[in-house]
């Protein structure tokens, strides 16, 4: 028996930090990823797809997203089992209870609305631990599994959960933290054969048979391994299992770190940016450190302006970026500065080299001085 474990589709999610022109692509990318999951399920002869929570980004979404989602799911050849997570809990505003959802729900799309066993295929049942609010008062997975009996040979039981596990975030005070030890006990006692989890957007194996599939498409620059789905094989008789990670994400969020201390460094960065493929589905955060002459900084600004036009995002990660601009003599030597202009240059250069807040303003002013003097010479 084989199935696709995925989660955190976060359909409807927007990325306000992206360029205006990149945002619709980002939005569409999520639905495209779902479409690919359907294709993979078919190609890989999977029995079903289980989505472990946060199918939708929010219950407050415009209901139009449901139609678009069903349009994509309609192409699936296998059942799709959806688990409500913390972003789309089964509360009073639940998207799953909206008329748009209930009136158009395709037959092969099932929502785990409680922890009753759901037989997705003969011999295969899924125990869901859906979220009913954004702040559950306990370990939902533990509650869902506490009364499970041992699965008989020929039967397979899969647990679909959502939330942080205790081993990943042991100090977390959340009441909803999923206790890994009790899950391991359930697996060891053969009361279930696999635990598919959502919430963490990067793929991660908590245990041999406890997995976070991660989001199929990246959502944050902090994620270290996003864009995957899991292909899970379980032998119905032996209950032996294997997991294969498949990358399907098209988007990448990159953090580019460079030391820039010379014109050559600037050129190197330029080349590095140029080498990145699929620029229009790539967001880049730059961490730049170093000291540049006014002329080199001016060139760096030009390069970044150009890159902004190509990438979904090019942004200086301000918190980590530290570029000092110095008024190098050679920059201004040929510009014929004299008298009070020279004095102004000297003063700004001194301020720019300082440590206080006025330094960056002085660096900017030097840039202007450089520009005006150069254009006049």
């Amino acid at each position, binding site marked *: 028996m084989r199935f696709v474990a995925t989660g955190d589709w976060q359909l409807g999610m927007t990325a306000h930090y992206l360029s205006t022109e990149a945002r619709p692509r980002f939005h569409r990318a999520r639905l495209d990823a779902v479409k690919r999951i359907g294709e993979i399920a078919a190609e890989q002869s999977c029995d079903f797809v289980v989505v472990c929570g946060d199918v939708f980004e929010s219950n407050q979404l415009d209901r139009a997203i449901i139609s678009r989602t069903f349009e994509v799911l309609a192409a699936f050849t296998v059942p799709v089992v959806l688990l409500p997570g913390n972003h789309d809990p089964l509360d*009073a505003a639940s998207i799953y209870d909206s008329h748009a959802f209930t009136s158009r729900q395709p037959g092969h799309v099932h929502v785990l609305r409680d922890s009753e066993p759901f037989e997705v295929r003969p011999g295969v049942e899924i125990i869901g631990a859906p979220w009913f609010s954004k702040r559950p008062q306990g370990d939902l997975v533990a509650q869902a599994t506490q009364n499970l009996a041992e699965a008989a040979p020929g039967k397979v039981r899969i647990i679909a959960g959502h939330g942080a596990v205790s081993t990943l975030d042991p100090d977390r005070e959340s009441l909803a933290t999923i206790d890994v030890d009790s899950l391991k006990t359930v697996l060891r006692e053969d009361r279930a054969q696999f635990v598919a989890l959502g919430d963490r957007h990067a793929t991660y194996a908590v245990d041999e048979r406890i997995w976070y599939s991660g989001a199929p498409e990246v959502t944050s620059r902090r994620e270290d391994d996003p864009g995957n789905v899991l292909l899970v094989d379980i032998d119905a008789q032996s209950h032996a299992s294997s997991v294969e990670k498949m990358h399907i994400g098209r988007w990448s969020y990159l953090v580019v770190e460079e030391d820039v201390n010379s014109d050559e460094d600037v050129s190197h960065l330029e080349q590095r940016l140029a080498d990145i493929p699929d620029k229009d589905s790539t967001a880049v955060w730059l961490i730049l450190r170093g000291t540049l002459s006014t002329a080199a900084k001016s060139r760096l600004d030009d390069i970044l302006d150009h890159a902004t036009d190509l990438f979904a995002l090019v942004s200086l990660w301000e918190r980590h970026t530290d570029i000092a601009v110095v008024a190098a003599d050679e920059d201004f030597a040929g510009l014929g500065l004299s008298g009070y202009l020279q004095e102004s240059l000297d003063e700004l250069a001194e301020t720019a080299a300082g440590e206080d807040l006025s330094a960056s303003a002085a660096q900017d002013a030097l840039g202007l001085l450089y520009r005006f003097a150069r254009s006049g010479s």
Partner: protein
Amino acid sequence: MKFHSIHLRNYRGIADSRVEFGDGVTVVEGPNEVGKSSIHEAITHLREDKSSSRKASVKETQPVGVDAGPEVELHLSTGDYELKYRKRWIKQPFTELSVIKPRPEQLSSDDAHDRFLSILADTVDVDLLVALDVAQGESLAQAPLAQIKALHSALSESGVEVADHDDFLDQVEAEYLKYFTKSGRETGEYKDINAQVPVVEAAFEELRERSRGMDDLVDNHARAAARLKTVRTQLTQALADRDEAEQAAKAVAELKAVLDQAVDHAKSAQRDEQIAREALDRRTQLIADATDAQSAVTVAGKTVAGLESAQGDKDSDFDRFQKALEEKQSAVDDARAQAKAAAKTLAKARARAEQSDLTRRLEAIREHDEKKSRAQATIGSITVTTKDVEKLSSLETEVRIAEHAKTSAAAQIEAKQLGTRALNIDGTELGEGNSGEFAALKDVRIMIDGVADITVRPGASPVELDKALTSAKGAFEAELERLDIDSVSQARDNANVRADAEAVMAEADSTLKVLLGQDKRDKLEAALARAQQILGADGTSASTDDKAGNGAEVDGQTRDRSLSELETAVAESEATVDDAQSAVDSTRIELERTRTSRDDARVETVRAQTSLKEAETQHERLTSSLAEARKTNSDADLDEEVTSAEARATNVGSQVDEARVAYEAADPETLEMQLQNVRQLVGSKEAQREEVRQDVDRLSALIDDRASEGIYEKLAAAEETMESARRKQTRLGRQATAINLLRTTVLNHKEESQRKYVAPFKEQIEKLGRLVFGQGLSVEVSEDLEIVSRTLDERTVPFESLSGGTKEQLALIGRLAVATLVDSDSGAPVVLDDAFGFADAERLNALNVILSTVGQSAQVILLTCQPDRFARLGGAKSVSLT
């Protein structure tokens, strides 16, 4: 440059004049028209105009009426050169330059002119030369110092010359104006974005609040739903509790019904018992009453017997007193007869005296009086009046009414004679077979001949009726008696006769009144009557004289005794009468007392007899009642009835107790309170359920409403807008900050360098000027080295607004300052033509000090027509131009 001397020939009004200048201040004095201004003019011409010049200004220097051209020779040193330069214009013009130092040279014509200008250019700043040369009337204006290189180089020694970066400044200004107005306010995109950011932030915040509000609604809904579930559970429990309580209440109600029924039974049994008891009590009372009645009869009987015997005694007492009274009465009568006789005797004696008198007098009226007397007799005999008849008739009617009433009330005797024996009732013979009715109003005697003599006494008829009848009869009979008649009809006849007599008497009476006159007739009559009566009391007629003798004889004895004796005898006999009478009275009182006693005894006897009768009747009645009652229920039956009723009441009472114990054991009050509580609980829980359910519905509706809005997208869009605006704001802010900083820095440095540059000049002006204006002086000097304003004692006034004198003084001080600043070799003499005309004496003194000071380092040439102005100028060479 220094001027050593100047030599003018045929120049304007000057034929030939030579002036030697000192190294310091030289005052060239001379009256007007002498040509001191010509010195100033000549130096200029010499420098500027070639000897061949035909300019108007040159021609004007040709003296009138002299056939020779104007000629000027100037001896001067400049730089390393010492020169003598000479020109003549118009007539036989020529130019000569003699260079004395450093190497002697001799030049003429244009060569000389060119060479002179060349040397001048090499050694002195011509502009300076011009600037320090003040012609007459030019002293108010400032010299154009900006172009003077000598001054610039002098100033450059201390400051740096201000560079020319206008293009750069233009770019800075253009960039600056993208973000700020000239007055420094934000403008353009920068201003717009700064205004926009708070707006989009507010919009974002509003949407975020709306999103949070949605979350709050969802939370509230979850809480309300949980509450609804709890309330529903509570309601179910309350309903179960209520049903249970109602069942318990029903059971208690049944116990209560049993109790009520038992209580009803008990009340019924108690009533039965009471009825039996009362029957028994009545029986007992009846027996007691009968016994009491028996005793009463016995007692009454004895009383009657005792009273009857006392009655006999009282009757005999009365008879005794009656006889005693009769005896005493006869004694009184005897005494009264004697007294009467005595009195009669006395009266006769008196009457006799009166009789003859009265007889005569009355004889006259007797005739008329007879008539009246007869009538009066008639009236007197008939006392009955019509009115009396009416009254009598009315009284008779009253009697009849009373009688009838009494008759109706009295016992009726109906009698019938059955056989032949005569039956006489109250004297009425009935006759055989007859019958009659009789009212027993008084004793009725029934006589049956040879058989019986029965007296029927009427019983006590109703007192009121008797009284009424007696009263009516009494009244009627009293009236008959008063009227002295027998019947009403008689009374009516008498009344008619009387009426006639009254008419006759009235007539006679009126006649008598005339006859009587003053005397009352009746008085006379009475007196005569009395007299006659007295006289005729012995039964003899006194009317005849014959008899009178006889009477006199009889009365002779009487007459023999005196009146007083007679009167004494009368009194004695009257006393005897009184004594006898009082004996009668006392006896009568005693009799009355006895009568009263006898009557009282009679009343008491009758009363006792009546009581006895009543007692007997009562006894009889009670005895028969008792006998009758006993026929129905014997005394024993009644006792039995009471006993059995008591037993039944006791039995039912214990049933009530049992029922009450059972009822109270069920604790009905607690049950009722519990039932009420649980009913109210159901009510309140239902209300609560409804309330919470409505709350849940309301929240659901709100959530549904808001869920369809797509808040997430709107919020995301608002965030994008906000982020974008903030980025733009940051970017523009940086740029604005940068250009502002650059501009400020550059302008500050430019200003600073200018300030430094003009500083020595400014300082020199202030140093010299303080001599004139005082220590509080400062001036502002522009980039163009013009005095912009003067500040004195912190009051700043623009140069143009200053007074003429002050302007002139400041302008000349400016020139003098330049002269002192410029290096004495490369400098030029200060030539002042007719200056300081506006200065007052005090300032003039100060200016003298200044000129003296300046003169120490520079050559100053003062041309004046008023040498007094410079009288106090120390160290000056004075030259008089004549």
